[in-house]
């Protein structure tokens, strides 16, 4: 897993406007104008947020159409999710060993 990519993903997710944009895109692709509508933010500001999201790999933008509709990329979210899963696995592994250790110090065998 590319750590740098993951850092970008989490940093991109840390902003409420960008999270709201992703929520909107989860319902389907949208143009910048459509994305700007619900926010009291100018289209150029939305474009800046889209750049951050694009760099994080969270969205992709059409190079073809003039309006450059934006779509959500689920792969980046999967990566963030699998990082969380790795944290869980580490703790489960520690707890297994803690159980064995506590049995040992109490003179029990497993």
């Amino acid at each position, binding site marked *: 897993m590319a750590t740098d990519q993951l*850092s970008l993903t*989490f940093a991109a997710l840390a902003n409420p406007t960008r*999270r709201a944009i*992703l929520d909107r895109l989860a319902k389907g692709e949208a143009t910048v104008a459509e994305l700007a509508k619900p926010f009291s933010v100018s289209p150029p500001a939305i474009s800046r947020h889209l750049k951050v999201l694009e760099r994080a790999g969270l969205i992709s933008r059409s190079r073809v159409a003039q309006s450059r509709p934006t779509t959500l990329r689920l792969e980046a*979210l999967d990566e963030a999710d699998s990082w969380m899963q790795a*944290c869980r696995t580490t703790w489960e592994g520690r*707890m297994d*060993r*803690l*159980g064995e250790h506590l049995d040992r110090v109490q003179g029990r065998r497993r």
Partner: protein
Amino acid sequence: MKADREVRITRTFDAPRELVFRAWLDPDQIVAWMAPAGLEVPRSSVQVDARLGGRIEYSMVDASSGREHLVVFEIVELSEPELLLFESPAQPEFGFPERISTRVTFEEDGNGTTVTITQTGHTDETIGDADAGWTSILDKLESLLA
């Protein structure tokens, strides 16, 4: 938006609470369990300053590859024998892109002890913002997409 799904692990041990709690702060015991199977903790790598504002530091070494992973838990809250709260700095070089809070509670459960570990990540941009758990956005998107 609240962080409604952090990484959370609960385990009940057949051991008194005081004993379970001490296993977290005693260097000789940390060596025995604080790395998952396949990784070892060299005794020489363990440093514990078991007080508020202190820290636990150790390395997890992968015997087969020799790769070493430094683990740092800064002690933010310590209430023996029921609570430990750690903060870990971001370590991009070890695959941890952001600061992590780890809350560990110890509850008496009959003759045993239930340990609950709750781990929440946050980027620097969001520290101090209760609304900032990165897990919540993943959840929310997952539910939208389901």
